[in-house]
Each structure stands twice: as C-alpha cells, then as structure tokens.
C-alpha cells in the first residue's frame, strides 16, 4: 500500500523516466535493426565470414554490461549517446543471428525454383528470403528489445537517465521502495513490449505460413 502511495506521489517523475527509458532502448534497437539486419543478410551469403562475425557478436554479448558502460566513458564520455551506443552493441547480436538463421534456413527448394524461373539474386532476396525469414528476424528484434529494457537501467550509471535512476538512487539510499519504483515499471515495460512485439511477429507471419504447423 505504502509503495503504491509512494509511486502515485512520484507519478510524474516515473512517467518522465519511463519515456526516457523507452527513448534510449528504442533508438538503440532501431539502430541495431538498421545495422544488424543487413549484416545478417550479408553474412548469410558469405558463409566463410559468417562464423567470424557471429563469433565477434557473441563475444560482445559476454562482456558484462557494467564493464562496457565503464569502458565507454573514456571514449565517448557520459550521457545519452554513449548509453545508446552500448545498448546498440548488445542489441546487435540477437538481430544478426536471427536474420542469419532466418535467411539460411529458407527452404532450398524454393530458392532453386526461384533461380530456375529466372529470378535475379535481388528478387530472390526481396521476394523470397526476406519475407520468409521475417518472423525469425522479428523474433530477434523482440529478444533485443527485452534484453535492452533491462540493460538500460544500468545506463543510468553513466547519466542516461531512465528508470535506472530510481534503482541506483534506491541502492545508495538503502531505500527498497525507491528500488521497486524503478524495477517494477521496467519489468512491466519489458513484459508489455514483449507481448506487443510478439503480436507484431504474428501479424508479420505471412498467411501462407501460419497454418503450417
């Protein structure tokens, strides 16, 4: 009860932080899509470098986010930009990987039929490979978004703002209520985005593919 009263009292602050939080993750994921999808498509055509790129992306994922935020300060300073940059790095991996898997698992017979009919490589990509791997790519975007919403709380450490502010303030003041005020909306945001993107994923799945299973 007390928590609710606290949160209502700070409603305006929470809302502001929530918007900021969404902004950071949103921009990071948007850039990750713009970079990750083309990379994923590219490496699906170049099997020899696919392993290398996926390996690098994998290693990035294993660096603790706290450390990466710390390491970026000497290079990019603090604030919004470095935060978005670090989050982008984390968002890349699932998107590249899912795009790669999506494209490489398109039924070879369909591609052969396309080639045999005289489709150009670009037409095969646009009319066959991308549409058929769209659900998979969306899955990658969903995973990236959900991970980023959580990771973005740490970005508050380097002055990105967002819901992480409440958590860090709560930790330093040993105020559980404050921590929860940051944590609960973060968790809710993650759940809502997950559901929302899942919905989009289903919507984007071509009609002809839905009945297959």
């Amino acid at each position: 009860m007390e928590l609710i009263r606290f949160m209502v009292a700070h409603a305006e602050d929470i809302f502001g932080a929530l918007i900021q939080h969404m902004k950071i993750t949103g921009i990071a994921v948007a850039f990750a899509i713009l970079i990750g999808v083309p990379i994923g498509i590219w490496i699906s055509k170049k099997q020899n470098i696919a392993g290398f790129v996926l390996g690098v992306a994998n290693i990035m994922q294993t660096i603790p986010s706290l450390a990466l935020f710390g390491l970026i300060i000497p290079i990019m300073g603090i604030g919004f930009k470095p935060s978005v940059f670090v989050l982008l790095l984390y968002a890349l991996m699932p998107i590249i990987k899912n795009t790669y898997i999506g494209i490489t698992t398109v039924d070879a017979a369909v591609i052969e039929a396309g080639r045999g009919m005289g489709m150009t490589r670009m037409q095969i990509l646009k009319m066959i490979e991308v549409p058929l791997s769209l659900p998979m790519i969306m899955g990658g975007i969903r995973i990236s978004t959900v991970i980023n919403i959580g990771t973005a709380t740490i970005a508050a450490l380097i002055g990105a703002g967002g819901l992480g502010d409440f958590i860090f303030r709560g930790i330093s003041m040993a105020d559980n209520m404050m921590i929860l005020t940051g944590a609960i909306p973060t968790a809710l945001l993650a759940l809502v985005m997950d559901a929302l993107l899942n919905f989009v994923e289903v919507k984007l799945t071509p009609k002809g593919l839905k009945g297959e299973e």
Partner: protein
Amino acid sequence: MIELKNVVKTYDQKTIVVDRLNLKIEKGQIIVLIGESGCGKTTSMKMINRLIPMSDGEILFDGKSIMDYSPVELRRKIGYVIQKVGLLPHITIGENIELVPKLLNWDKKKRRLRALELLELVDLDKSYYHRYAHELSGGQQQRIGVARALATNPDVILMDEPFSALDPMTREQLQRELLKLQDELGKTIVFVTHDMDEALKIGDKIAVMKDGKILQFDTPERILKHPVNDYVENFVGKDRLWKLPEMMYAKDIMNRKVEVIGARRRGLQAFEIMKSRGIRRAIVVEKEGKQQQVPLGWIHINQLRGQKAEEKILRDLVKVEIQAVHETENLPNVLALMKETEANRLVVVDDEEKMVGVVTQSSVLDVLADLVSEYEEEGDED
C-alpha cells in the same frame, strides 16, 4: 531445339561428373535422362538453364550458345519443375503462377487470366487461386509447379524428377496428364528420372546414363529390345517386357520360318513333300519356295488323303481362311484376336500384306516361357 556438344562438368578439376556428353534434343519431344544417382543426369539437365555452369563444351539453345544469353534471360525462356516443387509458401497459388509474368511486367489482368487458364489446364478448380501451398496435397502442388513452369509459355521445360516424391497412384495420374498436356502443347521436355517404368511410359526418347556418359539414346522400344550392353539391359530390367506386353509386337513373338508350299502342286505331290519334311500343316502360296508373298490359305495333311484330293491342285484344296495380323500389332491385341476368331494360328503380314511369319499358340507360349524363366533367374540372384 537444344544440342549438347562435348559438354563436360568437373569439380575441382578431377571429379568428372559429366564426360563429353553429346545429345541432340528435337523440338516437341520428351527426352528422358535416366540413370542411377550420381550418373550426371541432373547435372546435365541443370547445365542447360545454367543453374550449373559447364566446365567445357557447348550447349546450343535454338541454335544459339547458351552463353550468349544472360542466365536470367535464358531461364525465363525455359520452364523448370523440380521434385520438391518449391512453391513460395507465403503467397497464394495464383501469385505463384503469376510470378514470372509479374517479373516480366505483364499487366495484372493478363496475368490473372493466364493463371486461371493454367489452373484449368492442370485440372484444378479456379478456387485454388486464393489458396496457399500448404493447403494442397503433394500431387496438387506439383500440378501448380507445372502450371507455373508453363506461365510464360516457354518452348522448353526441364523437369527434375517431378513425380518421384508422389504416391504411385498420383504419380501415374500426373504422368498421364503430362502426356495429355504434351499432346496439346507440343513442348520440348527434358525429363530426369531414375524410374524406368516412368521413362518408358513418357519418353519419346530415353538416354541411359552412367558415369557422366550416355550409354544409349534411343526410343523406349529399342532400349527395351536392343539394349547396347549388359548394363543397359540390367538397368532396363529383363522382366520389363513381361510388365509391358504392349511393347511386344506380333513380329517379336512369331515364328519367322514358315512351311510354304506352291499352289500349283497336286495333292499327292504335296502329301509326299509334307511327309518328307515331317510337317502336318503348311501355308499355300503362289510361288514355290518363297515365303515373302501373299498367303492363300492353310493346308493340312489330312486334306490331301483320298483319290480326289490327290488329283487336285492345292489352290483348289485350300479351304481354311487365313487370319492375318499386321506385324506391329501388340501382344494383347494378338491374343484377343486369337481368342475372338478361335484361330490357333495367325499369319503375320507386313505393310504389303505379305507374310513374314506365323504366330501360333505355342510360339506365344515359348515367348512367355522365356520371359518367365528370365524373371525367375533374376529373382534367384537376389
């Protein structure tokens, strides 16, 4: 229409998949490439539409080297049907059929009319236009595969084991329909299969391949009856004729040597001749000692006994009417005729109605007995 000249395909400069292949494909024919897996049949076919680049040699399409076309341009001139069909699952059947016309910028109305026309051609209801691939059975999908290949009305269609994944009933149905389509459209079709029954059924000509070479390129009938070597013979299967009695003709089952006797001989002479030859029955012909002429009738030794008969010439003695069949009549028809006319023996004649041999019940039995024994021998080896 298509000519392969010394075509070679190697991988890594050592593995030879297709070895100096020569093949001339006439317009309007169904050519079947057949062989065991790894014989190079699919590779040979895919080099025609440049899905696989050839290592050496030349392929002419309509008199022009395929290298003078861009791959995309070439492939749009050639229909392509594969075993797994490869319909795009995310678009409707109609859109699948319209794909190439769309790439060629046909207008929407023309495309749609063509798709509906093709649905009818492959015997599917118009309502399939809005369905998706996964809603169709394998056989229906392959019908669409064929319709799609025909969309822009190409003269040549390549088919890579198109019916191999289907159940036997559907396969047969589609084979029949392909022949029907071929009668209507007169396409040039290159058809790859490993199924001899299929090849014999649909091929105008069959190329039996092994180790990247064509061992024999011939009509189904000649492949069956005159295999060039043991490999082809075994591949065709010795029991094949047994399974395809339609491919056995009167000339294959007849006795070539027929006892003839001149029409001007008197009964007594004829009696002595037949006795000395040890025969009881002969065919009466105009000129003595020559088989290739119009037969007059049968004479049996019993007809020659008695004083009256001994005096007469054979021409007047012949009573039994001749039942004749043309040499290209097939076994079922020969048997049917024998049953119908209750004749024990049929005279086999050529185009000029001249006798070339005789089919008797025992000659039919002989042929069947031969086939059965070969069939059993083969069974024993297993």
